[in-house]
């Protein structure tokens, strides 16, 4: 039931504006860990999320990799899903009607195997009501350039972001890969290409071997490491990115609790995303948002004062 409209005396302390978009709180769900939102509807209050970032979308549907696709590792997990998804058209037609009924922001995570594909996916989402922003996953091999990963080559990353910016009017968040030597170079490249914000980090490439069988656990051999095991690396990259970044940052990597999220905010992120934690507790993101509110109250701080407040 709706409460009668009232004059708000105090504004929402968790509200944050990123890339010109207002979010009710700084806690979003990370792409690939929250499906298309509906999967979690029975287990958490989706209306309390800052945003839902949906599973990465490509131009055509993708089948993904053969299994096993996941394996647990110490305080983390490896995944090699292979970017299975319904494709951008089916997303707009079949998944968006549900998402439009949720009182939160929807961010569409996109990827492609060529620069044209990125641009075309972005273009198709541009006129879709209910999509508030695009998040570009650049941790993808460029098939035309012999498989070189867009996200590890600053020139390629620049070209992708530029093409997406030219193809769409929606605000663009570029998601950086941690598998680079110097994150600052990547920050500069995507900023020069016009990105409106940066999110980081995507998974760290890893591998685990079943010693009895002498085989890798994943059929794909290697996979992306996520979960608490990567958090210190992610916080460090966020802090380094903040030193040079002009655009807002969205931090992630192993956030399980409000305290984990606070590390990223203090290191300089304006918002955070919660990934693997949602598998462990489907209500994790909502709990983290309320934990951040408690912290701000306890320290009599605003969210703006907290962001980047690290004392070194």
């Amino acid at each position, binding site marked *: 039931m709706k409460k009668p409209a009232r004059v708000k005396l105090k504004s929402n302390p968790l509200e944050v504006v990123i890339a010109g978009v207002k979010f009710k709180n700084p806690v979003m769900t990370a792409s690939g860990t929250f499906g298309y939102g509906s999967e979690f509807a029975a*287990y958490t209050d989706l209306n309390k999320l800052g945003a839902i970032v949906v599973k990465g979308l490509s131009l055509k*549907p993708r089948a993904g990799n053969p299994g096993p696709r996941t394996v647990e590792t110490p305080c983390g997990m490896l995944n090699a899903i292979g970017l299975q998804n319904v494709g951008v058209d089916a997303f707009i037609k079949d998944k968006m009607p549900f998402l439009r009924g949720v009182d939160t922001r929807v961010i569409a995570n996109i990827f492609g195997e060529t620069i044209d594909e990125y641009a075309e996916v972005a273009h198709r989402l541009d006129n879709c009501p209910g999509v508030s922003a695009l998040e570009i996953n650049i941790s993808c091999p460029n098939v035309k350039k012999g498989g070189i990963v867009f996200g590890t080559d600053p020139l390629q990353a620049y070209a992708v972001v530029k093409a997406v910016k030219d193809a769409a009017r929606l605000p663009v968040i570029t998601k950086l890969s941690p598998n680079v030597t110097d994150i600052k170079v990547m920050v500069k490249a995507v900023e020069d290409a016009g990105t409106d914000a940066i999110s980081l980090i995507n998974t760290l490439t890893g591998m685990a071997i079943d010693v009895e069988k002498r085989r890798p656990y994943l059929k794909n051999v290697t996979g992306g490491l996520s*979960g608490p095991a990567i958090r210190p690396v992610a916080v460090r990259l966020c802090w380094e990115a903040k030193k040079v970044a002009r655009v807002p940052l969205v931090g992630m990597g192993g956030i399980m609790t409000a305290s984990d999220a606070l590390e990223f905010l203090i290191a300089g992120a304006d918002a955070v995303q919660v990934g693997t934690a949602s*598998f462990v507790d489907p209500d994790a993101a909502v709990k983290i948002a309320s934990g951040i509110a408690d912290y701000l109250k306890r320290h009599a701080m605003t969210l703006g004062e907290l962001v980047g407040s690290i004392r070194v």
Partner: protein
Amino acid sequence: MKKSPDTKAVVLYNKEILPGYFLLGLKWKAAKAAPGQFVMLRTSGGFDPLLRRPLGIYSVINAGGKKTFGDDGIELLYKVVGKGTKILSQKVKGDGIDVLGPLGNGFTLKAEHENKKVILLSGGMGMVPLVFFAKALGSGTALFGCRSKAEVQLASGFKKNGCKLRVATEDGSAGEKGLATDLLKDEITNDSVVYACGPVAMLKATAAIAATVGAVCFVSLERAMACGIGACLGCAVKSGKHSGVYDPSGVIENREYKMVCSDGPVFDGADIDWEAF
């Protein structure tokens, strides 16, 4: 979307019924479960082990008017194989456990199969969901395979639930010497409907035998799971029936992978691409 379901369960008992095998009774509000469904439970309150562990439902504790346990709940039967199940085995009466579920589709006897001869085929811990299914059916032929005599007791639930039971052990220390699928070859006709759960090799053989004689067969599959609710797309199995056409980049028109947690765990044996397993 307003209210999340109750994931708080309380341990009623956690008995070692055989060395390394535990029967766990949980008081749990969301105990409305169908045979073949499973739960995802957190073995530790912390993050190591990180992910929930999937366990099949062995039975539903229905207090009804009797209030035997003061509430409804479920029974799980598990084997200690690693870190998570080890921690689980140390839980005692009154401990809280976070349980998500019931999840998945489960076994059903379809109307068109009602007049067929029902065979419940299991190997090792694969008996868990089938004993529950036997209770719902109240009759049928249960075929159970295990390593040796020590594990035969696991299948006692089939008899209790009204099934005829035949046992095979690999070492011949009890029942017939051989595999459960050897018994299956003996029992199956083209008028059988087989429900199977156990090791992949067993399920693969079962699907092949059923296909040869022209019987219907449903299998319950296992895959490593992260979410259990169809969100991570981690527990994929390749479906045999696909109208999609590959192009070199691996892009297809139809979804070819099915999720064990949300599309299954029970599948038509003829729908699975066993070569890809």
